[in-house]
């Protein structure tokens, strides 16, 4: 699709309405666009409407009580646009599983003194990051991106894990690079560094993007499950909520186990449900027996 001819005022109008002129021209079968084409299109000229009708929520809230209005930041508006596009364009499914974190927790406890010495917070997230890179090595089709035209799959030979960080100015996703080559101390220290710099808004653009998959961890806050939105061009996102001691039936009795809930939202165009179940179960297995990470 080539860019249609449109005057500067038409281009400004399109920006204001959030309309992609290339898409509109293709929909109308025209190589040039004027403002009157929008009206035709908006009133049902055959092409898809550029945005949903939201007039029903354009209400005067002050009728019901006092209201303070604050402007959405540019940062938040860009994120909103990207999230809406991801939600609209990707047929995503969320698969849920649980991982036994008992061994990792024991191991972490045994390293407490050393962690203090090194000045590194060795979190469960560091293990989960390492295990996710390993799971991606074992399931290469999850470490891929679908081309924008949907005609090819780019399978990646690197294992970079995005870590979603909640900051006062919005969500940021810095990326730990080449996780497969790094030890747990280094991964833990990099996650700590990226997270604290994200809080201070000192993440460089080159430190974001290019992830194999993103982890969004609400474990420190709470919750039992959620359905994260895939962060394109990645194919899946792993959500984590709070690890809790849960009774698990071992065939004869209930054993108290530290179980971490796992929520994997994935792009169903590329990954089918059985694959996702196998992937997440394999990932849970790596966490349950972290010795496997050495193999």
């Amino acid at each position, binding site marked *: 699709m080539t860019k249609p001819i449109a005057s*500067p005022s038409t281009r400004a109008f399109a920006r204001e309405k959030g309309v992609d002129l290339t898409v509109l021209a293709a929909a109308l079968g025209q190589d040039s666009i004027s403002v009157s084409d929008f009206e035709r299109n908006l009133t049902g000229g055959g092409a898809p409407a550029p945005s949903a009708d939201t007039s029903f929520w354009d209400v005067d809230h002050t009728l019901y009580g006092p209201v303070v209005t604050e402007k959405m930041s540019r940062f938040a508006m860009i994120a909103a646009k990207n999230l809406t596009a991801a939600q609209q364009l990707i047929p995503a499914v969320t698969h849920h599983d649980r991982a036994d974190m008992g061994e990792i927790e024991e191991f972490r406890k045994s390293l407490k003194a050393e962690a203090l010495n090194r000045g590194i917070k060795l979190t469960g997230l560091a293990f989960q990051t390492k295990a996710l890179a390993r799971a991606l090595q074992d399931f290469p089709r999850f470490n891929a991106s679908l081309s924008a035209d949907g005609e090819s799959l780019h399978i990646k030979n690197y294992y970079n894990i995005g870590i979603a960080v909640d900051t006062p100015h919005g969500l940021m996703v810095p990326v730990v690079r080449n996780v497969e080559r790094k030890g747990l101390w280094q991964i833990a220290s990099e996650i700590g560094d990226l997270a604290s710099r994200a809080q201070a*808004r000192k993440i460089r653009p*080159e430190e974001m993007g290019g992830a194999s998959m993103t982890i969004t961890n609400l474990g420190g806050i709470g919750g039992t499950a959620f359905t994260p939105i895939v962060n394109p061009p990645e194919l899946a996102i792993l959500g984590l909520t709070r690890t809790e001691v849960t009774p698990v039936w071992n065939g004869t009795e209930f054993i108290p186990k530290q179980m971490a809930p796992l929520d994997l939202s994935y792009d169903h165009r590329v990954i089918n449900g059985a694959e996702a179940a196998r992937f997440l179960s394999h990932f849970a297995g790596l966490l349950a027996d972290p010795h496997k990470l050495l193999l």
Partner: protein
Amino acid sequence: MTLENHADFIVFGAGPGGYAAAFRAADLGRDVVLVDPRATLGGVCLNEGCIPSKALLHAAEVIREAREMSDWGIKFAKPKVNLDALQAKKERIVGTLTGGLVQLAKKRKVTVVKGTATFNGPDILKIDGEDWSFKDAVIAVGSSSIKLPGWPEDDRIWDSTAALELREIPKNLAIVGGGIIGLEMATVYSALGSEVTIIELGDQIAPGAETDAVRILANALKSQGCKILTDTRVETIKATKASLTLTCTGAFAGKFTADVVIQSVGRSANGNLVGADAAGITVQKNGTIDVDNCCATSQPNIYAVGDVTGGPMLAHRATHQGKVAAEVACGHSAAMDTDLIPSVCYTNPEMAWAGLTTGRAKADGISHKSTAFPWAASGRNLASGGGDGLTKIVYCPETERILGATLIGANAGELLAEMVLAMEMGATLTDIALTVHAHPTLSETTAFAAERALGTLTDM
């Protein structure tokens, strides 16, 4: 975080990009602080660039035209140039414009702070040691003349700023760098009586401009007494008490002496002057700061406009970017969505171009054709004493849409605007040809060039 000194919207640099951003933001209701180290507003453009050079070029043109009138039977005495008075006139013009900016700032309640601002974090900065917090910031700190390494420190080696100070009229003037700035200085000083030699590393002066037009310009400069050495590199400059000796290699290999050398080899972005690192913004090796088409940097509340964002380093690009940055920061959906930035070389004759040249189209493998109308066939040009000139249009052979235009001749910079609008509107050769142009005007030449391609021209 809000400190005692707080700026809702702060602009670093009061050049064309900076003051456009500041004034637009103020018009949109923001409390604006405009910081600049100069005593006057307007940046390089007003103080030591576009405007003062145009004043001197006007003087040069009058001198030249008066001389040329002898051919018309009107003889003027040789002009007596009082450099101090000319300098003062130029300063008055600059003063009127910078003073006007002060009024425009006052009218909008923009706070002007004289000083240098540097970031101390993504929402804090220092102005000459004093801490400020801010909400949105625009970096508009421009560019500086490139100084070639290894050249001696000498009062007789000028940059464009020094050249505009009219310290003296050197007998022999060497201009290193045949871009727009160098050619304009050649025009001024040759009219004032200097013997000018232009040395250009590339294969033509005004690199990037349409070759046919450059040929006309080179011939005109030669007839004005300028020597042009292309494909030539200045290897060394040796300063002696008597003069400066330039040693060159390339198409001209050898030595020659000059009383003054003007260095006009380009400008480099001033991105390293703002402490960008502290705000988490990367400055590229060449000093530029990357922005998207909303002029946003990697920090959501910090924008950059003008020369500091790279080329083309032109005031009118900066003002457009400045407005975009202000509007985006105020929640509007503005963007810099054009790459049609007109270039004007205010020489005699003037040369102006925008969009594709035939050279660029060939290099990029873009399907194109071109048509041209020589000004030797323009009644208005001949009747106004104009010499050789050309209007050339590059167009798409399939759609007839205009892809680029170059004009050389009197007022070429003014005439170009029609072509830029035509390109923005997606106009075709037929659109131009069927638009009635007044006769006799120089503007007719665009219609004639279009008609020539369409086979409907009757004026040639």
